Every structure is written in structure tokens, then in C-alpha cells.
């Protein structure tokens, strides 16, 4: 390496007061220097809840992928899913930070990720699902990334410029995730009789979780120029799934949607619309040692 290549890391070895114990650590605000104001006419409480839901989906999904690390069939898949988890974690950080800005109570991404209780999480159940095998991982990632890409494609034109920028950025990443997942669904579906049957069985497990993605959302209804109507995403997502399933020689599962979780009073922006399961693993260290640095 040249002298300048080492110089890229030189600042790491310097004494600083920002707890930079390793590469990439010690930073606090993923939206540093971005205009945090909420546009006129936008319901700030609803924007908070909306960004929380989008951030929670990414945070919980990322965590579920991280739980796969060291258990995947090939090193290439470890790398792929670690990268996808990192992309989603990056999206979660920006979305939770945006939620904190809109809320205006001084809560940052870490407060929202580590110090909310399970019932305060707003993620979809598809994001929370624990994959029982690699086929479920592939099928779930296909549905999730196809849905989120369709959603972010619309949110790129959101009336909230920060949300629009986060969505436009994330869409590029999600398109890549979707293709990765699609390739695996095809490889397994159009593979051996055993892999085909296991992929079909996995879709049967995932499918009841998909209907929730397109259900009307009272929070989105309060943010017409900011949010996307979930029902409008269905056609685009269906077209993608149909194309992949056809190539994979798989049938669309005939599975009834999982019953909806009874929601609280819909008028309260932060009412949990879903039963969320946030792993204690995600929060326990931060809660046991608040504000700890190491």
C-alpha cells in the first residue's frame, strides 16, 4: 500500500473524545447536517409513526438476518446476507433518526431502537418471522424486498424531503436484494424434487404473512402527500412474484391471510398496529449498560 492508503486509517489511531474504538464507530447521527424540519401541513405525529414503522421493519429484518450469520450453507451466502442486513440497518438508522426528528422530543436512533418496549414496535410480522430453513429465508426476502422496493419507489416522491431521499437511496439497494432472493427462489424451486418441495413448503409458511403488507394503514391515511397507500402496491408486487414463481416452477400458495392483530384506537399515532416481537438479544446490552462505551 502507498503511504496515502495507510493515511486513510491514520485518524483511527489518534486520541479522540468520541469513543471511536473501531472502524465506523463513534458516530451519532446518520442524518448529520440535514434539514430536520417537518414540511408545513404534514402531521408530525403521523410522520413519526410512519417513519418508525418503516425503520422497525428494516431494523427487525436486519436482526433476523444477523441471527443467520455462521449458519448459512456457503461463505458467499454469509457475505450476501451480512451485506443485505447492513443495508437494512443503514435504512433503519436513517428512518429512526427521521422519526426522532419529527417527534421533536430529543430521542435519537439508539433511544428508539433500544429503549422502546415490544408493544411500541410497528414492524410488519413478515419482518419478524424467524426463518426455519434457507428456503424460508429466500422466499421471505423475495416478498419483503419486492414489497419494500415497490413502497420506496413511491416514497421517493414523498412530500417529506428527508423520507424521499432515504427511500430513493434504499430503492437501489432493495432492487439488488430482490434479485438475489429471486435467483435463490428459482434455483431451489427449479432444482431437485427435494429443493422444489422445500421451497414450495417455505412459501406456504410465508404467504399468510403477506396480506398485512397491503392492508389499509390509518397512519398512512393521515399523511396523503407523504405516505404511500399500501393497497396500491399489490399489483406491482404480484407481478414480480408471479414472474419469479413461474420461472421457479412454483405455484402461488393458496393460503389464507393470518388474522389481523387487533389494533388499539386507530386515532393514536403511536398505537401499535401489530403484535411485535423484538428480540431481547437486540436490546439487552444497551439496557444493561445505558450509555456505555467500550
Amino acid at each position, binding site marked *: 500500500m502507498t503511504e496515502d492508503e495507510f493515511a486513510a486509517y491514520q485518524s*483511527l489511531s489518534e486520541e479522540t473524545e468520541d469513543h471511536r474504538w473501531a472502524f465506523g464507530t*463513534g458516530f451519532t447521527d446518520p442524518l448529520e447536517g440535514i434539514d430536520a424540519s417537518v414540511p408545513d401541513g404534514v402531521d408530525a405525529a403521523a410522520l413519526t409513526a410512519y417513519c418508525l414503522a418503516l425503520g422497525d421493519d428494516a431494523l427487525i429484518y436486519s436482526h433476523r438476518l444477523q441471527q443467520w450469520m455462521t449458519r448459512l450453507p456457503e461463505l*458467499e451466502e454469509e457475505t450476501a446476507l451480512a*451485506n443485505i442486513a447492513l443495508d437494512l440497518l443503514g*435504512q433503519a*438508522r436513517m428512518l429512526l433518526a427521521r422519526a426522532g426528528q419529527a417527534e421533536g422530543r430529543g430521542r435519537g436512533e439508539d433511544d428508539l431502537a433500544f429503549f422502546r418496549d415490544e408493544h411500541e414496535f410497528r414492524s410488519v410480522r413478515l419482518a419478524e418471522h424467524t426463518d426455519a430453513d434457507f428456503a424460508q429465508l429466500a422466499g421471505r426476502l423475495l416478498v419483503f424486498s419486492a414489497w419494500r422496493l415497490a413502497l420506496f419507489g413511491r416514497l421517493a416522491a414523498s412530500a417529506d*424531503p*428527508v423520507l424521499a431521499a432515504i427511500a430513493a437511496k434504499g430503492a437501489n439497494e432493495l432492487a439488488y436484494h430482490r434479485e438475489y432472493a429471486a435467483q435463490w427462489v428459482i434455483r431451489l424451486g*427449479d432444482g431437485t424434487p427435494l429443493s422444489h418441495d422445500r421451497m414450495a413448503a417455505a412459501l406456504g409458511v410465508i404467504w399468510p404473512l403477506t396480506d398485512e403488507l397491503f392492508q389499509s394503514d390509518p397512519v398512512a391515511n393521515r399523511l396523503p402527500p407523504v405516505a404511500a397507500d399500501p393497497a396500491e402496491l399489490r399489483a406491482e408486487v404480484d407481478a414480480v412474484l408471479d414472474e419469479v414463481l413461474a*420461472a421457479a416452477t412454483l405455484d402461488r400458495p393458496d393460503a389464507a391471510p393470518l388474522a389481523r392483530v387487533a389494533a388499539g384506537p386507530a386515532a393514536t399515532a403511536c398505537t401499535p398496529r401489530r403484535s411485535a416481537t423484538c428480540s431481547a438479544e437486540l436490546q439487552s446490552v444497551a439496557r444493561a449498560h445505558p450509555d456505555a462505551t467500550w
Partner: protein
Amino acid sequence: MVTAAGIAAARAIAAAVPDPELPMVTVADLGILRGVAAEGERLVVTITPTYSGCPALREIAHDLRRRLAASGFTEVDVRTGLAPAWSSDWITAEGRRKLSAAGIAPPRAAPGRSGPVPLTLTTRGGSGGSSPPGLAGTRREAVACPRCGSADTTRTAAFGATACKALFRCESCREPFEYVKAI
């Protein structure tokens, strides 16, 4: 007041900051550096992340402050600019030349981003050559080998050691190489 000459000097310093993950190229080569401007006594440097979760962005911000401070710019704000979203199309011709010289294939043109994003599937009977069809890991792509120039290359992994890269192998010289993903 930061003078025009001062801004030009600061811009030159900022543009020369190496990327921590790809130290053979600078933040200007990668299109990460969005702007250098003055606001009164303060210098404002705007950078953009490549990938949402890329940890390099804060290291770059830190390195920018350190290098600018060493040249006398002590009042520096480093801001994040998210829009327009970074794409690999922002990598300059000079950046592509440096990547290639270092054995990393530069990205092809990024896929278009208007309307629904089309899938690009490889299915049975597709362009898999002699490889088993439909395999995610064996898709042929028109990425030239940075070592021998051959276009006969195979993607061996869609993701690599950093968020921005995928892995390839050249079927002519048999060397593996990294490729900057086109997004």
C-alpha cells in the same frame, strides 16, 4: 470570511481524501464529495453515503476534518447530502481508471430507475453457458477482466467484502477479481 482561494484550496484537500475501503480512489473519484462551500467563517463540506449502512462515511468525515484542520481550516461542518441518491454512475472516469489499475473492475452503467424496476432473471435455458442454468452464482455478465481484458467472466458471488463490491472470476486467465456493483 473564507476567501474564494481558500475554498479552492479546501476543495483540493477534500477531493484528495482517500476512501477507507477503496484507498486507491478518492472521495471525489467516487462521487462521495458533493460540495465545498463557505458560510461566513465556516467551511461546509457535503458528502453522500454510497450505501445506507456504509460505515466508511463517518471515517471519511473524520478524515476530512483532520486534513482540513492540518491546513488551517478549523471551522468545518461536514454535512450529509442524501439527495440525489448516490449511484455507481457517479464514479468518475479517473476513478474507474484507478480501480481498474488496482485490479477492481469498475461498474457498468447502473440500471434505470424510472417506474417499476424490472427483474433480470436467469432461468433454465438462459445464458448460462456450460454452467447449470438458473444458478445465482454462475450468471455471466459483460464485465471485462481488469487483468487480461477478457469479456469471458463469471460472477461468483453477488456480494463481496464491502457493501459496494461483488466477486467475479475470469474464464480466460482464471484470476478472481472484485467488481464494483452497478446500482
